[in-house]
């Protein structure tokens, strides 16, 4: 997510918003924002409702066997359709912002 913060202007110039979703409470996310300097919205899905709907639940993956999100990135266009997805098989390896920007360029969104 640091990479996305560094490339935030590239996304905003293209009219693209970034939002990160986890089961963390707003307070926990606020601490993370302050510590890492994130300025895009961090959204709180404590019961993993949206995480489940997107099919990216990691059951018992968190502390105290809590259900959490598996790492994943979705690109949603203005009609609300998913246009691009990145699903890593390794917690450490996340989508790079350059890859998402490239997907944006090739998708030719309205």
């Amino acid at each position, binding site marked *: 997510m640091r990479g996305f913060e560094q490339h935030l202007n590239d996304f905003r110039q293209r009219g*693209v918003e970034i*939002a990160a*979703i*986890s089961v963390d409470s707003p307070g926990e996310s606020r601490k993370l924002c302050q510590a890492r300097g994130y300025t895009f919205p961090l959204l709180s899905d404590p019961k993993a409702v949206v995480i489940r709907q997107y099919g990216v639940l990691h059951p018992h993956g968190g502390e105290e066997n809590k259900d959490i999100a598996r790492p994943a990135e979705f690109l949603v266009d203005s009609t609300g359709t998913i246009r691009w*997805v990145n699903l890593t098989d390794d917690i450490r390896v996340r989508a790079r912002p350059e890859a998402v920007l490239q997907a944006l360029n090739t998708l030719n*969104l309205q």
Partner: protein
Amino acid sequence: MKRRWNIPIWVGFTFVIAAVFSYIPLFALFPVTRDVPWANYLLFLIGGFLLAIGVMRAFRDPERYRGKLSGSLFACLSVAVFGLFVFGLAYASKRIPSPESALRPGTVAPPFTLLNTAGRQVTSSEILKTHRALVLIFYRGYW
């Protein structure tokens, strides 16, 4: 004659410790050193090389150099630490559910309303009214 300290053993072990503890706070922050942790492997390699020199010296010339016991001990510990590191990368960090259940491109993105860090409601359809696209990053949290 007083035996000398076997410096490469200590420096080598320091490199090994640095190799394992530098990953999360430092090298994992940069994709170049995160996805393939070559910087950490390099530190392990330097540490292993120095330890090997130190241990060889201790056994070949025990009257001049210390470190037969400490060198062997640190070498074993280093192998164990390296093993744990490789295990973490190859196994522990890949323990996530298969991606088959995830929504695919072309499907409708479920609309949502969630709280942001200020405790205010953020609605996906509102964002999409004023933007060409929305990138959703799902993350594990608790980091």
